[in-house]
């Protein structure tokens, strides 16, 4: 080994700045201030404790044991370790819908997606758009029909003759037209539905 190689060896940066490993243990602080995870760095199977980071402080998905993670060490210092991202594998494949380039938020098996404030547990389920559209369309059909029937309603009066239509028949005809209008748009023409965000019933 010549002098230059010796010096290069001496001053070689042996620090690990970024590594890849599997999550081995989770440790949530009781006050929720941090999620520490034990990461089993690959391939040497050296374990380090790192703090988990998320897409945003309030947009959080807790990792699961054996997830593959990218760990970064600030300035290469082993005690300043952060999990930056989780990585897909054949055990956690990219969601099918996302493979076509779509953005996808899919909960872990048995888990839910919550949208709400960071201090509460959301309990109200989201509405399924298409189901609601069909429901609205049907309801509006029935309302239109009801309005039409009221506007044309007659019955046998006190003298034994059929009465005329109600005095407010014109208003009911307007209502009928309104219900029809609502049904046509935004319900039946799907303006009530988003073209970019979709969900599903789940199980």
């Amino acid at each position, binding site marked *: 080994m010549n002098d230059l190689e010796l010096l290069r060896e001496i001053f070689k940066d042996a620090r*690990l700045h970024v590594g890849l490993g599997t999550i081995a243990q989770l440790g949530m602080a009781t006050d929720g201030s941090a999620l520490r995870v034990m990461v089993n760095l690959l391939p040497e199977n050296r374990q380090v*404790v790192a703090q988990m980071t998320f897409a945003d402080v309030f947009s959080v998905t807790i990792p699961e044991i054996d997830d593959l993670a990218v760990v970064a060490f600030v300035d290469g210092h082993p005690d300043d370790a952060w999990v930056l991202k989780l990585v897909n594998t054949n055990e956690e494949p990219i969601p099918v819908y996302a493979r076509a380039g779509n953005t996808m938020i899919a909960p872990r098996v048995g888990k839910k997606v919550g949208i709400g404030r960071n201090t509460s547990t959301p309990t109200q389920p989201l509405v399924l758009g298409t189901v609601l559209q069909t429901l609205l369309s049907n309801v509006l059909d029935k309302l239109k029909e009801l309005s039409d029937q009221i506007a044309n309603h007659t019955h046998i009066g006190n003298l034994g003759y059929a009465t005329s239509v109600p005095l407010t028949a014109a208003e009911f005809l307007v209502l009928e037209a309104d219900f029809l209008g609502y049904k046509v748009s935004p319900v039946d023409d799907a303006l009530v539905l988003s073209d970019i965000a979709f969900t599903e019933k789940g199980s």
Partner: protein
Amino acid sequence: MSYYYPRAAVKLRILPEDFQLKSDASLQQVLEIIVQAKNVTVTVNDYKTTDTFSMDIDYKNFPFDPRTIRSCGVTIYMQDMELVPGAATKLDAGLTNAVYGGFVDEETISFDESKREVHFDGRDFTALLIDQKYQVNTPISFNSRLDVALTSLLANFKATAQITVVNKTGGTLPIIASFDPAFGAPLAGMKNVGPKESYWEIIQDMVNRAGLICFIHLDQLILTTPKNQNDSTDDIKFIYGQNVKNLTFKRKLGRFKGFNIQVRSRVGKRVLTAKIPEEATAAWAAAFGVSRDPVQIPVLKPDGSLDTSAQHFAPYITFPVPNVGNKDQLIRIGQTLYEQYSLQQLEGSFETTEMLGRGQTKDTTGDTRQSFTQYDLTQIAKGQSIVLEIDTDDLAEISRLKDVPSREQYLIRRSYDKNVAAIFAKTMGKFSPRFQIKSYQMTINNNDGWKLKVDFQNIIDLTQRSQP
């Protein structure tokens, strides 16, 4: 001139080679033999560096082919056999006269017309800890007291499991994780270990976080503070003109002299900072003899006069420390760092052939009646404090212990300008004679006897401040 009978013995713990690649060394029997060496040199370095030894043994007394030895542990004993006049001169190897423990790195056998020698070079247990990388692959828990955590760490490695952790701080050792705001949380209080981190690096890190220093002495890991080593009751007096030769002082004037220390730790989004000396404890500042004002440096104007228009603070040397949310602990760490950095202003070396620390000196108030006990110089330790005085007849008038007018007159008689003489005479009285042993080398040679070479460095000691 005193009479000594220096003797050295070396205990070798030899693991023989069995020439089988698959053999398990730990199952082999270790052979212990004691040999007399022709020359033994023990070099004890500063507390972060491994200590070394070298010795020559007459081949006649050690007729082994180096290939027969797989590994060899070494304990070296030195003693003045005149300590007990009339007693047997055979050195009994024991804990009281052990000066070195380690292992052989290299063995050489040489034959020529004048000698047939076996030469050993080796290092102490520090080297084992430096060479050994941490391979346990799990983080180290800081959730137990420092000595317990260190003992647990050392137990991971068979060769260092026998090292005892000794607390010489005079207090209870802390739980390092207790300084972490997340102490007690799941997975908190753990230290990750880098891919090529050695045991010694890990130990240094742990000890630094506790605001302490450590070093290996024989088979002990000593935990202490720089200041604790400066206990005046342990001072050994060395006096040029009586028991010292080749005394040298050196000061690097170009070196950065004024400085402040700041220790920082990130706690969540906030950074906790401790500045030393301004935030040091009053007790520490009093004991260490420094003011709790930020250190300032003189700045000259272009015309050469001193700029007094503003304060010019000396640069802050910054040390990041992970996971310390306790300001008191940051201050403690900063104080230790300040002490260590302060040990670099003045250094030097001297040699002595005396085996006992002796001689007459005066204390800092000039009291010549002060006495002290004799000290076995084979048992000195790194970090120990010593007092160095110059005591020759022709320099008596300029002695540190003389009064200012005498020193001034001495300088004037030697044609110094009166102003220069006045200033120099005054400042000479302010120097402390106390130093700290940085490293030392002990040699026992069949031909030349005993020799001790000491490298020392100064400690900040302003006990002379009030002296005129």
